[in-house]
C-alpha cells in the first residue's frame, strides 16, 4: 500500500456505515414524528430527499462491486486518497449531524420555519458531500 492511499473498498464500506447509522437515526426520528402527525408530507419529502438518494448510490455501488469479477492475480486492489477519504467522512458526518439537529429543533419550533431559515445552508453542504462521495462511489 502506497503511503497516503487507502483501499477503496475500505473507504466505501466505512462511508456507507456512517450514512446508514447517521441517516438511519434521522429517518427513524422522522418516521416516529410523521406517524404522530407532527410533520406534513412536504417536510418528510424534503428530509427524505436529503438522505435516500445518497444512500441509494452507496448501496448500489457496493452491490455492483460485490457481483463484479474478482481482480486478476498480481493486480493491486484499487485505492483511494487518504486525505479525500477523511474529507468525505468529515463532511458526511457534519451533514448528517445537521439533519438530526434540525429534527430535534422541531420540539421547540415550527419545522417549516426552521427549514425556511436553514434549508439553503443544508443544501449547500449537501452539494459538497455529493462531490466528495463521488470519488468513492462513481464507476471509474
Amino acid at each position, binding site marked *: 500500500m502506497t503511503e497516503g492511499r487507502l483501499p477503496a473498498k475500505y473507504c466505501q464500506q466505512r462511508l456507507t456505515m456512517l450514512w446508514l447509522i447517521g441517516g438511519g437515526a434521522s429517518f427513524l*426520528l422522522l418516521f*416516529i*414524528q410523521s406517524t*404522530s*402527525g*407532527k410533520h*406534513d408530507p412536504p417536510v418528510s419529502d424534503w428530509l427524505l430527499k436529503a438522505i435516500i438518494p445518497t444512500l441509494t448510490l452507496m448501496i448500489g455501488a457496493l452491490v455492483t462491486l460485490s457481483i463484479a469479477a474478482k481482480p486478476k492475480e498480481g493486480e493491486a486492489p484499487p485505492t483511494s486518497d487518504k486525505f479525500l477519504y477523511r474529507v468525505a467522512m468529515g463532511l458526511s458526518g457534519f451533514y448528517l449531524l445537521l439533519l438530526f439537529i434540525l429534527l*430535534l429543533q*422541531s*420540539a*421547540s*419550533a*415550527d419545522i*417549516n420555519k426552521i427549514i425556511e431559515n436553514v434549508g439553503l445552508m443544508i443544501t449547500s453542504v449537501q452539494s459538497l458531500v455529493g462531490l466528495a462521495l463521488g470519488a468513492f462511489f462513481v464507476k471509474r
Partner: protein
Amino acid sequence: MILKCFKYPNGMLLLFSMLSSTAFAQQEYSIQLLPQTYRNVQETVVLSPPEVNQVVVPAQFNSVTGVIVTAEAHCEGESLVPKSLTIVVEAAHSGIEYYPAKYDTITENVTVRPGTAEWWQTETGAFEYFATEPDIRQVVKRIETKPSTERRIDIPARTRDISVRVRAADAIPLSDCARIIPAQTQVISRRVITEPAQVRTISIPAKNATITRRVSNAQTLTITEESGAFRETLAVDGIMPPNPFPGTLYKPEIENNNCVLWKSFSKDNATVEKGRFPWPPPNPSTESTLPDTMFAGVETLGDMNKLLAKALDAMGYQDRRRKYYPVPHGFALLTEIEQIDDTGMPLSGNARWTDDIYVIDPPSILGWLKALVTKATGRFRVFALIVTSEDVNTEAEFTDRELALDWLNSGTGALNRDRAACQFTAAHRVTALVYEFEHPEREKPYLVSNTRINHIAGSGLRTQLINAGATP
C-alpha cells in the same frame, strides 16, 4: 352607554320621558332642558400699578458777604507777619442720592368670553352637547421689579485758605506809632444753607382698563309631573352624562336598580357601539353561574367588582390586562388570555401569558421528548365574568381567537364610577363564561365547543372568591 346614577333628592325614583312618556309606578314626568343663558360682568384689569416717584430737591443756599482783614493796621515802616487763615465758604451739609424703581412689562392672557359648554334638547327629545373655545385677549401690564431707594450722603464744608498779614507779637502799640497805616480788608462771599436737601414724593395713580366678560349662568333642567302636581328645576351638573362627545345624541333609559343609562346615538340614529362586549354573548366553551348566596353582603356593583378583582389578583391576574364592558344592568369583566394545560391549570411563569404553543411546562426531559415526537398543541382560555340581572342567553357562533384578543384591546381598564355606584340587587347573578381555544401546530386556533376541562375548578375561581370575602 354612559351610566349616570341619579336619584331624585327626596328619594323618589325619577323617570325621564321624551316625546313618548315612559310610565313607572303610575307616575309620568316630562323633562325640559332650558337653553344656556349668559350675563355680562364688568371687570377692572390693572394695567400698571400705582407708582410713587421721588424727586431729589438739592439743598438751597444763599450767598452772604463778609469782610475780612487781610492786613492789620500797623505803624509806618513796620513789617507784618504773614499768616494763613482758613475761612469756610460753604458749610457742611447732607445730600441725597436717589435710585428710582425699576419696572418691567409682561403680557397676560385675560379671558374675555369663557368657552361655552351647554346642552341642547332636540325635537326628538334627545340631548346634544356643544362646546366652544374661549375668547382670550392679551393685555400688557407694567410691574415693579425693584423698588426705589435713597441714600443720605454727608457733604463736607468747603473752605478757603487766605493769606493775611498781622502785626508781630512784640509790635509797639498803635498809639505810639508816628504814622498809622490803616488795615486792609477784603470782601468775601460765603454760601449758607437756607433749605436742606430733601426728597419730594410724586404719586402716579394706577392705570386700569375695564373689560366686559360674558359669563354663563348654570344650565337647568325643569322636571314636570304629567299631572302638573309638581314642577322642579335642577342644575344639569351631576345629571347629564359626563365626558360627552360633541355631535353625539344622548337619550336616557331607566334601569331597575335606580340607575339612569344614557344611551348614545350618532346623528343618523345609529347606535354608537364603541368597545362593546357582544350582547347576548357568543357561545362559550363552558359556563357556570356562581351561587347568589356567595354574594349576600354585596351592595353595589362596585363592591362586586372589588370582590372579583381581589379573587382574580389571587389567581395570578394582578399585573395583566383586565377589561370592562357595560352590559344591561351590569358589567362584563374579561381576563387576559392565558395558556393552560390539559387539566385547566395555567402554565407556570411567563409560559402562561405567551402564545407560543411549543413551550414545555414544566421543563423536563420527558416533556421535551414528548414534544419531539408528538404534534404540539397550545390550549388557551379567557374568562368573561358577567354581572347582570338579565338572563345570560348565549347564542352567537364564535370561533375566532382573534376576536377574543380584540376584546382585550378595547373596553376600559376600570369599572365606570357611575356604574360602580349602582345597586347589586337580589336579581343580579355572576356568570362565568369560559372561552377555551385550541391551537394545534400548523393550524389556526379554534374555539373548543364542549370542553371536558372543569375550568372553574382548575382556575380556583370559587375558592379565591371565598378567600376574597364571598360567603362560602
